């Protein structure tokens, strides 16, 4: 950060002596960032890294949408298309979603609980770098095999890498190996960061901050990290088994030797389903901080929100086979997984109602951040409802594996999670950089992205209802899918422009945006009590708190939260 004081400044020095401090050499700055163990810098590296991959994976999606806009298109070959959808999915889940959420968590959690850093700073740095290496390894695959022409040896087995398609005999090149190793490495990083988050939250809260007074964002990251321990590990185990099959000749998923393709499915989805909750819980955490501030009210039903989050974490471990309704399980199994999946809608619904109740009776400020949060609310509601539809096993027998499912999960990933991430950017960018993002550009970003999102993902449900399966590089002209695919593809253009606008906003505002000050939103949690950006040590004096909204208590001494809790 060019505006920070030199690294040798002692504790107590103000953070912005830029007009007197000498400019540091580029090499010094680089060394600082590469060797840092500071949670804020690591958080920013995670976020920057994820944004780069967001653009790359978005570009892969754009290529796919051009190919699918008309039937029997020849924009890309079938082999390249199959690599594109594999890389797009793998990148978005592991190298955009996870890092960006860990980035925000890393940056915010210590600040919000009154700590000076994460529990294990060196582990923190190690986790980042090994995850980053995983991403680079995945993309190096484009250069493997026959090289860039023909997309090299990039993985082409789908992001679930079903057996036995991944067996040596059906995938003789190295595409599967790149997929497996890249994710194994980043999985190590993920588990490391999760350990850090749990240890930080349980062991480093400032005095007075009982678990009952912790910001909900911290609660959601706590649940998410606990989920990571039991979710990423099955994938790690299954991938070790896959590598043994491919290299040592074992038979875990070798159907010729009596092995089971279904076993891979179970292991993968025991990871895969809780994984989507790992991705969505932090988004809930952002909503729990942002919606109250821009409604000017405390979150409605804090204990219920905690209980619902923990409940969602537990129930999410029991629903995985709703991804396997079509593989021929017994009626009993299908029935059980239908029920479990429907049950998870109850705590999820509670959260939506609590957010509604927070807005009720408030004074809603339509900042760019809040608009994205409101978009999240509507879209998450819809996504949850299409999820209920898919939980009905017979309905899934028709719509599973079709574009209806693709529309559903993009509604969650983009319409809910990405919208909430955008909201989080507009909310916390001032804290991280010291400057405000342009609200005007932010609103352009919002409306353009909203239009593009709905054009693409609302209409994407229809080809699914009309029988279009997923993962096909082309389709017959007589199916009647073309008009819908054209509309879907057109929405991608709006989303691209909106995202580029957003990136421009960040870059421009970092240099030229209005100075933010410590608390631009008149908010109530501890991170807003530091300067923007916070000094290296976060807090000169570790605070003591006695309610859930310490800054509210300071600003409203006549009506503090501590009365009511």
């Amino acid at each position, binding site marked *: 950060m060019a505006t920070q004081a030199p690294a040798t400044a002692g504790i107590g020095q103000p953070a912005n002596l830029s007009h007197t401090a000498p400019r540091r050499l580029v090499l010094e700055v680089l060394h600082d960032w590469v060797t840092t163990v500071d949670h804020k810098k690591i958080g920013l590296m995670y976020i920057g890294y994820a944004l780069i991959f967001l653009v790359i994976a978005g570009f892969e999606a754009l290529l796919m949408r051009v190919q699918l806009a008309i039937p029997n298109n020849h924009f890309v070959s079938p082999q390249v298309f199959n690599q594109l959808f594999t890389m797009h999915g793998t990148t978005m889940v592991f190298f955009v979603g996870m890092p960006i959420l860990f980035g925000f968590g890393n940056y915010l959690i210590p600040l919000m609980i009154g700590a000076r850093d994460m*529990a*294990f700073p060196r582990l923190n740095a190690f986790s980042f770098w090994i995850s980053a290496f995983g991403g680079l390894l995945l993309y190096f695959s484009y250069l493997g095999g026959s090289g860039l022409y023909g997309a090299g040896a990039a993985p082409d087995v789908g992001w679930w890498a079903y057996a036995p398609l991944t067996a040596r005999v059906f995938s003789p090149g190295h595409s599967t190996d790149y997929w497996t190793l890249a994710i194994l490495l980043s999985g190590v990083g993920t*588990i490391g960061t*999760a*350990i*850090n988050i*749990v*240890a930080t939250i*349980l*062991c*480093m*809260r400032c*005095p*007075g901050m009982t678990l009952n007074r912790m910001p909900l964002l911290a609660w959601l990251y706590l649940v998410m*990290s*606990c989920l*990571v*321990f*039991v*979710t*990423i*590990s*099955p994938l*790690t*185990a*299954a991938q*070790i*088994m896959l590598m*043994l099959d491919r290299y*040592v*000749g*074992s*038979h*875990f998923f070798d159907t010729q*030797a*009596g*092995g*089971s393709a279904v*076993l891979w499915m179970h*292991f993968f989805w*025991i990871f895969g389903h809780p994984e989507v909750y790992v991705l969505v819980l932090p988004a809930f955490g952002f909503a729990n901080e942002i919606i109250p501030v821009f409604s000017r009210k405390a979150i409605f039903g804090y204990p219920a929100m905690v209980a619902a989050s923990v409940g969602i974490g537990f129930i999410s471990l029991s629903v995985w086979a709703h991804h396997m309704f079509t593989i021929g399980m017994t009626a009993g199994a299908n029935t059980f997984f239908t029920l479990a999946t429907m049950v998870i809608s109850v705590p999820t619904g509670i959260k939506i109602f609590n957010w509604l109740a927070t807005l009720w009776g408030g004074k809603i400020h339509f900042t760019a951040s809040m608009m994205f949060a409101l978009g999240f609310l509507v879209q998450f509601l819809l996504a949850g409802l299409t999820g209920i539809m898919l939980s009905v096993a017979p309905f899934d027998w028709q719509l599973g594996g079709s574009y209806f499912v693709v529309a559903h999960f993009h509604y969650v990933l983009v319409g809910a999670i990405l919208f909430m991430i955008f909201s989080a950017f507009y909310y916390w960018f001032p804290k991280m950089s010291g400057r405000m993002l342009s609200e005007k550009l932010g609103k352009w970003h919002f409306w353009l992205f909203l239009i593009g999102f709905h054009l693409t993902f609302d209409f994407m449900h229809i080809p699914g209802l009309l029988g279009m399966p997923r993962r096909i590089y082309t389709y017959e002209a007589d199916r009647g899918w073309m008009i819908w695919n054209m509309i879907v593809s057109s929405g991608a253009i709006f989303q691209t422009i909106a995202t580029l606008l957003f990136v421009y906003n960040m870059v421009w505002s970092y240099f030229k945006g209005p100075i933010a000050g410590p608390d631009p939103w008149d908010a109530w949690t501890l991170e807003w009590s530091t300067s923007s950006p916070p000094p290296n040590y976060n807090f000169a004096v570790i605070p003591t708190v006695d309610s859930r909204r310490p800054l509210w208590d300071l600003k409203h001494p006549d009506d503090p939260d501590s*009365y009511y809790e």
Partner: protein
Amino acid sequence: MSQAAVIPQNATPAWVLPSRGIVGMACLIVAESAIFIIFVVAYLYYLGKSLTGPTPRDVLELPIFTSICLISSSLTVHLAVSALHRAKQSLCSLWLAATVLLGGIFIGGTAHEWYQLIYHDGLTIRTNLFGTTFYSLVGLHATHVVVGLIMLSLALIFSLNGAMTTRHTEKLEVLSLYWHFVDAVWVVVFTVVYVLGR
């Protein structure tokens, strides 16, 4: 403000939170347990499903002696921690050495068992489903034992040259937690592979 009773400062309870090392190791243990559970599930799923080759009953013998060694090493490492806690440096070194020795015997026993299986019984990881799941599960456990032995040996070296003192007790305790985990996994593996599976 007027409603709440005034609580004198020195009567407020001390703000005590769990230790980071213990919490961190507990989390790691949860994650590792999940990995082991998946390998155990694969083992159980494929029991009796091998198309060919030796079955567990044909080739497996109960590894009583090595198991006793490994389980006892949990006791010895616990004694090492409590010795360090009481500032008994050389006693700590002794118990650490005993732990490493017992763990080493376990690994040696496993190596011997595998030698027999591969060269005399013709069971390798690629022979059949039993071979695949046996070697991967027992091998994963053995790998964890080796990592633990390396860490314990390092601790032993630090204890012998005086670098590890009583103020490092908690760190050693964290390591011992890992070692207890490794032993607990062996109890499960032993039961599943050598008792249930045969």
